[in-house]
């Protein structure tokens, strides 16, 4: 009898244990109701956003990483910014920016703009800010963003101490006018001016940069309210804001989350309003959970694998056929859908969509999956050197799964041996890449600095460009980019760059794989949540519903 009662307990225990696990995986399926897009809006309503602790003080040229960057972008506004929908440039503080030769620019400011402390935004606010940020002694991560401006070398010399504190290319004419001289023509320089490094700074900043980095004073749509370290940063709408994108809500709370899963749970119970990114665990089911409130759109970022063209066996004439063949052997559709949970979009060009100058299908047939043609091309090109490739990558960035999948695809479809070559962290792999010691292939990628195709082309494939990891050098490509840079309008530049992109499709220095996507969602408390190509929501457009 005793034995029987013991057994009963075991059965009961197992039953309870199973019930507990079932609870965990069940979750809530009744939360998938779509949002009602026409609710009454509370213009003073505040919403919360999933964020993290900024890694650097909140100063314009220090906003490299996302956590601080997205906050600085709300606190400040530059001469120009990008239309979140099209990537087109629009004037903000600038009334007009004039140039005849793409080398000498005259900037005219609108009057009436003020910083959050009430002081006016003048030409000096911009010039002083840029000079201060360019000086390496001020420890700004993005201090090299001013390298186009004449006199940068004196302020930010490659060796030794700076010999000047001001760049000679910047001259204040009066309160609302200043001139910028560049060392050489850059037609899309105005595009660069939208980047956070080029924001103005109030006079008080220069007396106490550290204090202003902790309690920033800007000229953007939101003003700073509080920063509780590791907990939250709160901004409130600035009522005297002069720009075109005045906030339609009362403010934002950037709430600090360590684990994406926790933020997702909060979103599901409407405790958190807008998600930054859906965590990998919830990625397969977030569209079912959120229904209409799920966000899924491409970002201005691309993932490539590049060839080590500095190795002669990969650069020999005719090898471009092998490179194209390998690209055609990769089944991008299947890999993005399965291994990457639909969180990437197969690439059909070297430039990401949503970027000015993006032209669908520039990569042509080379980016289409075609195993038969792939084999043929590899054979025509004299085969893969050693009949084996390795793909170098850093194993701390979640790349292993897709690198293995790409290798499987190549191996199955062409018979070429393909192996992932993981390095423990980004720095180790980066060192090998910059020292040009990669045997055959490496993972490369590009996230836009500004939404113009030049940024994806010249800065990645131009001879000697800092991010040209492949060591690609084509006189034809360089000639076309030079022509494009010398064009007088940005539209013309973008068009000429498309011709340069066609050269890449022919030479295939890198295989475009896929574009990054924003996978996010929002709560039932807010509406009109849209994301830009940087992967950030258009904060000023978010509408908080009346309760």
């Amino acid at each position: 009898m005793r034995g029987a009662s013991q057994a009963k307990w075991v059965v009961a225990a197992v039953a309870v244990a199973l019930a507990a696990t079932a609870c965990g995986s069940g979750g809530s399926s009744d939360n998938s109701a779509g949002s009602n897009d026409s609710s009454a809006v509370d213009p003073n309503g505040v919403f919360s956003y999933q964020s993290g602790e900024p890694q650097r003080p909140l100063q314009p040229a220090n906003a490299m990483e996302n956590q601080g960057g997205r906050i600085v972008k709300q606190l400040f506004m530059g001469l120009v910014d990008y239309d979140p929908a099209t990537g087109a440039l629009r004037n903000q503080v600038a009334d007009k920016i004039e140039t005849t030769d793409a080398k000498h620019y005259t900037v005219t400011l609108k009057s009436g703009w003020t910083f959050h402390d009430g002081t006016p935004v003048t030409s000096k606010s911009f010039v002083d800010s840029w000079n201060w940020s360019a000086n390496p002694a001020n420890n700004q991560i993005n201090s090299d963003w001013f390298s186009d401006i004449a006199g940068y070398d004196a302020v930010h010399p490659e060796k030794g101490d700076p010999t000047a504190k001001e760049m000679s290319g910047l001259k204040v004419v009066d309160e609302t006018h200043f001139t910028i001289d560049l060392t050489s023509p850059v037609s899309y320089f105005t595009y660069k001016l939208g980047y956070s490094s080029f924001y103005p700074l109030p006079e008080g900043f220069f007396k106490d940069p550290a204090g202003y980095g902790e309690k920033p004073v800007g000229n953007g749509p939101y003003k700073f309210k509080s920063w509780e370290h590791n907990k939250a940063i709160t901004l409130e709408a600035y009522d005297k804001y002069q720009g075109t994108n005045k906030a339609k809500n009362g403010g934002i709370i950037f709430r600090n989350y360590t684990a994406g899963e926790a933020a997702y749970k909060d979103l599901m119970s409407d405790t958190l309003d807008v998600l930054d990114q859906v965590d990998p665990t919830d990625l397969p089911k977030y569209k079912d959970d959120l229904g209409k409130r799920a966000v899924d759109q491409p970002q201005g970022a691309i993932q490539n694998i590049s060839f080590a063209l500095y190795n002669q066996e990969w650069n020999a004439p005719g090898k471009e056929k092998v490179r194209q063949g390998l690209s055609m052997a990769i089944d991008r559709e299947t890999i993005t859908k399965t291994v990457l949970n639909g969180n990437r979009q197969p690439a059909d060009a070297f430039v990401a969509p949503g970027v000015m100058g993006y032209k669908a299908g520039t990569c042509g047939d080379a980016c289409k999956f075609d195993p038969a043609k792939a084999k043929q091309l590899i054979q025509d090109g004299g085969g893969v050197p050693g009949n084996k490739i390795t793909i170098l990558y850093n194993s701390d960035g979640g790349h292993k799964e897709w690198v293995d999948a790409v290798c499987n695809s190549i191996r199955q479809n062409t018979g070429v041996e393909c192996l992932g070559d993981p390095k423990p962290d980004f720095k180790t792999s980066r060192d090998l890449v910059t020292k040009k010691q990669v045997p055959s292939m490496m993972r490369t990628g590009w996230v836009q600095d500004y939404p113009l195709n030049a940024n994806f082309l010249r800065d990645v494939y131009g001879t000697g460009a800092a991010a040209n990891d492949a060591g690609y050098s084509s006189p034809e490509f360089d000639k076309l980019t030079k022509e494009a840079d010398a064009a007088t309008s940005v539209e013309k530049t973008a068009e000429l760059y498309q011709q340069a992109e066609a050269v890449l499709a022919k030479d295939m220095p890198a295989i475009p794989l896929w574009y990054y996507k924003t996978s996010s969602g929002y709560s039932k408390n807010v509406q009109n949540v849209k994301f830009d190509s940087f992967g950030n929501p258009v904060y000023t457009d978010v509408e908080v519903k009346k309760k």
Partner: protein
Amino acid sequence: MGRFVARRLLQMIPVFIGTTALIFFMVHVLPGDPVAAMWGDKAPDPVQLAALKHQMRFDEPLIQQYLDYMGGLVTGDFGKTLGNQRPVLDVITEALPVTIRLALLAFAIEIVLGVGIGLVSGLRRGKLFDKGTLVMTLLLISIPVPVLGFVFQTVFGQNLGWVTPTVQDSNDISQLVLPAVVLGSLSLAYVARLTRTSIAENIKADYVRTAVAKGLPRRKVIGTHLLRNSLIPVVTFLGTDLGALMGGAIVTEGIFNVKGVGNALFMAINHKEGPTVSGFVAFLVLVYLAAGLIVDLLYAVLDPRIRYA
């Protein structure tokens, strides 16, 4: 007694120096360059990289960095975080009160419930309550903490809506109850089992029989004689557990988004913030050492036969 305490306190000094040195050098040999990492996936500008490294004194020999760090520590200067250049002491004092509240709450739950349940089931061993306790504690021990956390979060936060799924204000103690229950549940099971076994053993001891025979009331027999003597193994466990609760709550803090020591330590390790990691560990070492000392002293209180000379 006084000499014993003094000796133990003196022993703490070499342990403290040794552990901080070990952590300082271990953080240093972690792969990756924390300064270059500030540029993310982009190539750093060499001029600015060198300037930043100089500011953070990474260009000095490692041993010099360590000596400066220890020198600062003696004067109460824990150094600065790498990215924001905030005093590490500020980071510690922000996270500490949260963790202390969470740990004490969990600790209280496991002592009150654990000892209580253990006592009752020890006295009624073989009965239904005892068997129920055995099954429940077995369950708690075998369910991993993250699973329990997610179950509680989904049931109480999402389905029932009694609380928000994560902690909204880490300084609000009422919001910390749910994470504290999760955090304390595993230890609760151990405490209950330890108490039960100890009680069940001691109840047959001679001194208990004597106490009953001389006509003491049942409450006094159990309270002063039985429970007090049975608590020695439990106290040993609780002592080390307090240290674990303070530093090892990384998983629970992550699930419930509690901004405590575990969370701060996790972030610091991720960013290779040498001074921050060392600062936290130095503090945790002190907690462990102090808890160990208190446990040793409690032995003497609980068992009159133990004396420290």
